[in-house]
C-alpha cells in the first residue's frame, strides 16, 4: 500500500490549548460579604450575575471559568475578568463570550472558539476550557 505523501512545507499541527481552574465558593461568599457590589461588578458581567442569581457556588464556577480561559489565551496578563464572560445558551450549556480586547488576543493566538465546561460539588467549582489553534471553519 502506497504511503500518502506529506507536503515538505506542511507545518505540524499546534497542540490543542487547554486550561482548568478550581475555585472555592466560600471564598466567593466571603468576597461578597466583605466587598459587595465592588467585588461583583469588578469580576462578573451583568449577564453572569443574572444567570447565576449571584449564588456563590455558581459565581465560583464562573470565576474558575475565567481563569481557565485566561490559561488558554496565555499572554493574557492584562485581560480583565469582566472581559471574559461565561454565559449560558438557550439549552443551559455554558459558552465563552469574549469582549473585543480579549477576542483580539484569541485572534492573535489564532484560536478557534473556546469551549468550556463547568462543575461544582461540596463547595468547590471546577472549569475546563479548550480551544483549537489554527482553526479553520468548514463554511
Amino acid at each position: 500500500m502506497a504511503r500518502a505523501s506529506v507536503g515538505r512545507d506542511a507545518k505540524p499541527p499546534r497542540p490543542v490549548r487547554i486550561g482548568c481552574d478550581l475555585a472555592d465558593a466560600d471564598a466567593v461568599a466571603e468576597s461578597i460579604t466583605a466587598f459587595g457590589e465592588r467585588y461583583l461588578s469588578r469580576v462578573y458581567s451583568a449577564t453572569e450575575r443574572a444567570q447565576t442569581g449571584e449564588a456563590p457556588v455558581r459565581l465560583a464556577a464562573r470565576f474558575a471559568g475565567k481563569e481557565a480561559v485566561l490559561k488558554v489565551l496565555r499572554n493574557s496578563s492584562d485581560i480583565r475578568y469582566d472581559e471574559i464572560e461565561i454565559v449560558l445558551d438557550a439549552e443551559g450549556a455554558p459558552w465563552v463570550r469574549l469582549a473585543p480586547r480579549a477576542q483580539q488576543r484569541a485572534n492573535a493566538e489564532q484560536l478557534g472558539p473556546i469551549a468550556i465546561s463547568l462543575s461544582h460539588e461540596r463547595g468547590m467549582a471546577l472549569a475546563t476550557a479548550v480551544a483549537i489553534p489554527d482553526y479553520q471553519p468548514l463554511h
Partner: protein
Amino acid sequence: MSEHTYGDRLAIREALQQFGRLNRPVAELADETDLFSVGFTSHATVNVMLAIEDALGIEFPDELLNRSTFVSIEALASAIEISRGQA
C-alpha cells in the same frame, strides 16, 4: 523608609492577613517572598486588591491587574506607587 512606604506595606500585610488565605502567617513573610508559593490563589488576589484599595483610597489601573503585581509584598508596594502616580 518613608512614612508613606511604611503605611503602604502595613496595609498590604493587613490585607494579606485578612483576605490572603495564605498557609503561613503574614508576619513570617519577607517582602520578597513569592506569595503564590505560600498558598495565594487567583481569587484571593481580587480580595487583597479590593482591601488595599479601600485602605489606601486608590484604584489599581487595569494594566497592573496581573499575576506579577501580586507575586510579593514588594511588588504590591511598587504597584501602589504606580497607582498613585496615575491618580
